[in-house]
């Protein structure tokens, strides 16, 4: 296979969002030659969509804040399913990661004494989110992008080439993580050896050979119909990890952000930032009632205001009042909105009203929520300073992901594979708090880059990709072109070529309707059946035209990944018979302490994948989580722990 271009690098980072870029910076600064590969243009990653801020307990606004409080909030938000070690590292290291951004040129909003301003957010006890208006994600991605450019400028000075030690392969897709041959005596057998990629612009295949690959591909939202996620979020990293032999955990936990736009239809799902509520926005139903007061769950009763008056006082005097229930964790708010709409108290377009216009002067709204103001004005012709927004839940984030070592971000079971950011699982447990995503990207992006660099440096003999894997990857990527040649009903799984767009729409519809925000056993079983049918048809997904910038072809390739992760979600959701965080079962509506320390693990089922696509490709198993370190447990009141932990855990 001499015709596939090959390049040797030390570390390959898949994805150029916050986690990927942070990993690349760290790996390059550790002296490794680092390649970043991303599906979009450099600087367009989905991280730009993040609005609210970066959670870090710097204590700039309220000095009572520290990492222990942040850790506590994170564990509560995740309903104690979080990997405690990740939550601990995250809470401890987030402030340093934010401060370091300033040294790279980031300009956060300031406090009167010149420090980084922090804002309130759902589930965070203190104002904690470092932010820039409501475009924090853009600031983050631009800062990292510019830091990368500055490193490249340094390399240009030293080596005469910007790309000498850090190169961004933009508009390229990785379709397989390659491993060294397991048979024979080849170096590093079974270890990661590189990635099989193609250029979206030209369709040209190439292989990046590297002993360490960092997955930072983000989430899976494009498997759902109503989503705040961009087209890139097809679960590539999740699928690459599965296919490389790694395992995924917590895939049943998908966060539906409570406030997405519901009108007009073409923008349905686009995010309305939580800062709208953090800054004073309230949710009302069609009767004008602030319904969130009716939906405060028992575990949060002491923490939230019981009357509107108290909630309103909290904005100015947070020390002597409790926060309004609009700022409950996202899963609670999303469920409440869902319930209101179902009860017939929704807005004209099937959402509820989110109102800031009666709560703040127009000038303040424009200053604090500029991009929301712009977004509604431009896309929905709604002036949020004068009228309420209509909002409803939208698929936003997947808590589940690649099972990793908490300290090193190394994927379990595949030496040389690392994962960070949304594609990694465990950190957020069953539900992520707003603002914890950006800090997650930075904390674990850096760790993944650092340990990938360390791993690569320690690799004496570079593993060589298995040639058969390269051949197989190429054949797999080209399949959609040959599908087009089949005569209808002639050969090849016995059916006509399928339109990948149609398949994608059906997949989104199925996931949205059957494995959406409220789940039922029968529906999820139906979803698995539909997924099996789609898998069969996806084998015949065919495209017209040629390989140069052909979106139909790209989608046909991404379908494999979406089908894989969708099956993980559906299978795990069917298995977990309780409601917790981002997983709500209509038939098991309460949280069950016995599930607290159970992780559901998805792995690729051996051998069946190619033979019969109708059979499930995923094998599901249960794994008990490691016990929480006693000093961390000591941060909580006993009465609170009783609600989450089993008796055995408590008595330990």
């Amino acid at each position, binding site marked *: 296979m001499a015709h596939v271009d090959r390049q040797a690098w030390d570390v390959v980072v898949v994805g150029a969002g916050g986690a990927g870029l942070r990993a690349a910076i760290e790996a390059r600064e550790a002296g490794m030659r680092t390649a970043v590969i991303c599906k979009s*243009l450099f600087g367009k990653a989905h991280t730009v969509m993040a609005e609210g801020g970066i959670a870090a307990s710097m204590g700039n606004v309220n000095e009572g804040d520290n990492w222990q409080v942040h850790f506590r909030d994170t564990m509560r938000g995740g309903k104690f399913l979080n990997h405690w070690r990740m939550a601990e590292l995250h809470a401890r290291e987030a*402030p340093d990661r934010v401060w370091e951004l300033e040294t790279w040129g980031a300009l956060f909003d300031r406090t009167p004494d010149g420090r980084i301003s922090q804002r309130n957010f759902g589930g965070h006890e203190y104002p904690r989110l470092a932010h820039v208006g409501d475009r924090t994600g853009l600031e983050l991605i*631009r800062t990292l992008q510019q830091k990368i450019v500055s490193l490249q400028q340094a390399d240009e000075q030293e080596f005469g080439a910007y790309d000498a030690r850090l190169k961004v392969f933009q508009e390229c897709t990785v379709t397989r993580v390659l491993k060294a041959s397991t048979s024979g005596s080849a170096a590093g057998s079974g270890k990661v050896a590189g990635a099989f990629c193609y250029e979206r612009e030209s369709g040209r295949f190439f292989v990046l050979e590297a002993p360490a690959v960092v997955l930072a591909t983000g989430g899976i939202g494009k498997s759902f119909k109503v989503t705040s996620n*961009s087209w890139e979020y097809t679960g590539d990293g999740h699928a690459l990890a599965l296919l490389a032999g790694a395992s995924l955990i917590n895939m049943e936990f998908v966060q539906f952000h409570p406030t997405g736009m519901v009108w007009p239809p073409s923008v349905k799902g686009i995010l309305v930032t939580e800062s709208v509520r953090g800054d004073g926005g309230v949710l009302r139903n069609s009767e004008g009632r602030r319904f969130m007061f009716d939906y405060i769950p028992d575990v949060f009763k002491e923490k939230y205001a019981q009357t509107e008056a108290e909630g309103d006082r909290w904005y100015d005097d947070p020390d002597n009042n409790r926060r309004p229930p609009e700022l409950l964790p996202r899963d609670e708010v999303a469920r409440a909105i869902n319930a209101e709409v179902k009860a017939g108290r929704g807005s004209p377009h099937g959402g509820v009203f989110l109102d800031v216009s009666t709560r703040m002067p127009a000038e303040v709204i424009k200053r604090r929520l500029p991009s929301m103001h712009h977004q509604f004005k431009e*896309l929905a012709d709604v002036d949020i300073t004068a009228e309420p927004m209509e909002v409803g839940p939208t698929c936003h984030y997947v808590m589940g992901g690649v099972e990793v070592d908490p300290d090193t971000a190394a994927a379990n079971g595949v030496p040389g594979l690392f994962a960070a950011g949304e594609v990694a699982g465990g950190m957020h447990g069953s539900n992520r708090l707003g603002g914890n995503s950006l800090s997650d990207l930075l904390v674990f992006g850096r760790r993944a880059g650092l340990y990938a660099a360390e791993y690569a440096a320690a690799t004496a003999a570079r593993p060589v990709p298995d040639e058969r894997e390269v051949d197989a990857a190429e054949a797999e990527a080209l399949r959609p072109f040959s599908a087009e040649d089949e005569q209808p009903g002639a050969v090849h799984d016995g059916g006509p070529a399928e339109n990948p767009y149609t398949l994608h729409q059906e997949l989104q519809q199925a996931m949205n309707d059957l494995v959406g925000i409220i789940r039922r056993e029968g529906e999820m079983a139906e979803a698995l059946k539909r997924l099996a049918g789609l898998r069969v048809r996806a084998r015949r997904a065919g495209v017209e035209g040629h390989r140069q910038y052909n979106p139909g072809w790209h989608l046909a390739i991404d379908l494999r990944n979406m089908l894989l992760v969708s099956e993980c979600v559906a299978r795990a959701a069917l298995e977990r018979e309780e409601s917790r965080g981002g997983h709500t079962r209509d038939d098991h509506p309460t949280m069950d302490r016995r599930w607290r320390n159970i992780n559901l693990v998805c792995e690729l089922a051996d051998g069946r994948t190619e033979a019969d696509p109708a059979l499930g490709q995923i094998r599901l198993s249960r794994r008990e989580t490691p016990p929480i370190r006693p000093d961390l447990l000591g941060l909580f009141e006993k009465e609170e722990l009783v609600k989450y932990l089993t008796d055995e855990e408590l008595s330990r």
Partner: protein
Amino acid sequence: MSVQNVGGRETDGTDGTGGHGVAGQRGEARPANGPGQAQGGQSGAYLAHFRVWRGDADGGGLEDFRVEVHEGEVVLDIIHRLQATQASDLAVRWNCKAGKCGSCSAEINGRPRLMCMTRMSVFDRTETVTVTPMRAFPVVRDLVTDVSFNYAKAREVPAFVPPAELGPGEYRMQQEDVNRSQEFRKCIECFLCQNTCHVVRDHEENKAAFAGPRFLMRIAELDMHPLDAAPEAGLDRKGTAQDEHGLGYCNITKCCTEVCPENIKITDNALIPLKERVADRKYDPLVWLGNKIRRRGQ
């Protein structure tokens, strides 16, 4: 091609054909979202006439399409519908579909715009909507252009220089001091300003010498950054803006500001202040003299 003269329609939005903001039409439109009702007449959906440039570096042309349009849709939705139903290999670059990433830049009826932020309701229903790729950059295929010019220029601007004496966490900046640079950092790098700027759009040969509005604005952003230590490091951002990044080519005709989807006042707040700062440095003998004396004094 029907030649509709509807000057100024992009801002007035009162023609009513789009129906946005008209409560009655919203209600009517709802049941019309299913396919097959496009020609229902009374519904919000209708068939629009689109002309889309298709081709690549070797040539191409405008291709006509009749395509369904529903209420509340934007041009990018229609391009996607074309992809899904009539031209599966129609190349288009897009990402967030919410005006935040700046990927879907194109020219719609000759005007540089983001496809995701151009609502169909700004057009007359009988009007032909022409969509072409950005015309200042080499075309790759269909609506996708090669924007590498911008990435090359980005690399030529020296990065933020952190002050040596401050460690992470020690930065103190006042809000009024960061406001100016923050405005420029709203930039989503859609490159519409680079595309519309006649310096490079109409003169390929100027591309080597001219950084373009986006990156001149980046220089202004850094020069106004309250803690940038470039002067201490011996880097004169003002002088190099003129000498190396081609600020002098800008004749402040404000097209960059006109097309900016983020409404950044590129010309008034970045380019002109930068020109004034250059004038301080290079064209103002009083300032020159003052600096000379002050340097002597030290």
